[in-house]
């Protein structure tokens, strides 16, 4: 009996540890986001206010120029004309001047720019601190102030 109890406790402990590892991996692998202090966080599709979150599922971020049924894995920005920044080439984007939709874009190549971004909306799958993925949300890009694709270290 005692042996069975010990075995069960051991299995439970391993399961808890495994869950912890999975949660940790899910949150560590997620993309870091930050909401603007002025953000209303209203989902553009449902009209409901979404809860605060700081993580988005990696690979879930999409940008929208004019229509929410046309998801882009890139956004346009104005430099010496319209240019395109692909998500796969990005390391981070950080809002600098909200009124002018100006973001500081850092590329994985090491380059950076601070142009006006043309795309207006963004969607992603939020991830809770416990590593649980939610429903996809659609927001004004201006509701965010940071998207950080870099791997999280700690």
């Amino acid at each position, binding site marked *: 009996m005692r042996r069975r109890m010990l075995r069960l406790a051991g299995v439970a402990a391993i399961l808890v540890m495994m869950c912890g590892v999975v949660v940790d991996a899910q949150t560590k692998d997620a993309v870091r986001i930050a909401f603007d202090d002025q953000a209303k966080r209203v989902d553009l599709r449902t009209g409901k206010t979404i809860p605060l979150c700081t993580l988005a599922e990696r690979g879930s971020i999409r940008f929208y120029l004019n229509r929410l049924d046309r998801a882009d894995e890139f956004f346009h920005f*104005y*430099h*010496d004309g319209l240019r395109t920044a692909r998500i796969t080439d990005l390391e981070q984007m950080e809002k*600098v*001047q909200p*009124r*002018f939709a*100006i973001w*500081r874009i850092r590329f994985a190549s090491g*380059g*950076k*720019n*601070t*142009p*006006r971004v043309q795309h207006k909306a963004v969607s992603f799958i939020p991830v809770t601190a416990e590593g649980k993925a939610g429903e996809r949300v659609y927001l004004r890009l201006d509701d965010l102030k940071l998207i950080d694709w870099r791997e999280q270290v700690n």
Partner: protein
Amino acid sequence: MEPLQNPSRRKALKTGLVTAAATTAVQSARAAVRSKEPGETKIVAIMGDYWHPAVSQELHVRAILSPLKDWKLYFVQRSSAFTPELLQDADLLITARYGGADSIGWSDEPVVVSRPKGDPYMTDEQEAAIIENVTKRGMGWLAVHCTLFTGRKAIEDLMGIEPILHQEIQPVVVRDLNPEHPITRGIDTFFFNLDEQFDAEIKDPSRTTVLFRTLAVHDKRDALGGWCLEQGRGRVVGLLPGHYQWTYRMPQYQEIFWRAAHWALKRDIPPFPGPSMS
């Protein structure tokens, strides 16, 4: 695909001549550096690119500083000639170039059918030479307009700012001129017909002086326009206006340029007599 073949004597000779010519060009760029004469104030300028008219920039900078007969301006015509040797005894550097190769290769032929590839800019060697000469030797530096977009962190650090891109080209008002600083004291609000209104964030406000701000007329963006700071033994002035020739034609901006050059050189600032060309 062309079949592989041994190079003919003529081709080998031709290739050798081209290589020799390229090597000679670089060597001659370095050899072209003349020693500074006694009493001379040596000013090196590298300005102009695809977006920014080098011709009018050179004409206006020469005109603004023309009353100073002992000031000699060395305008760089090809970036490979912008060398540590050229800077080693320069008193002032003026730059208005973003980071990117020369748009067209330089040629000394009077008529050009095809041009060589443009020289790279800014190289690691050029970056190091600027930093070394400003911070260690005390060379002054006027960092004008698109200079903030070299894409080099060390250069941004030396300028003391984080760059922000301009938006549409539009009329720009120069305002909030610092009444305390000798570069801007007594100069009132003025405007440019058209300019690219760059902006920047100052990295260390405690040791940077804002000279003026700008207001873009169409989109009403308020931006940093000019600033200055000490960097080691040298002085740096950042002046963001300067896209078109209109900017350099404005008497108030000419005066700011004149004063900024003197301030960066740690010289007394004489009254601006006005340029010889308007």
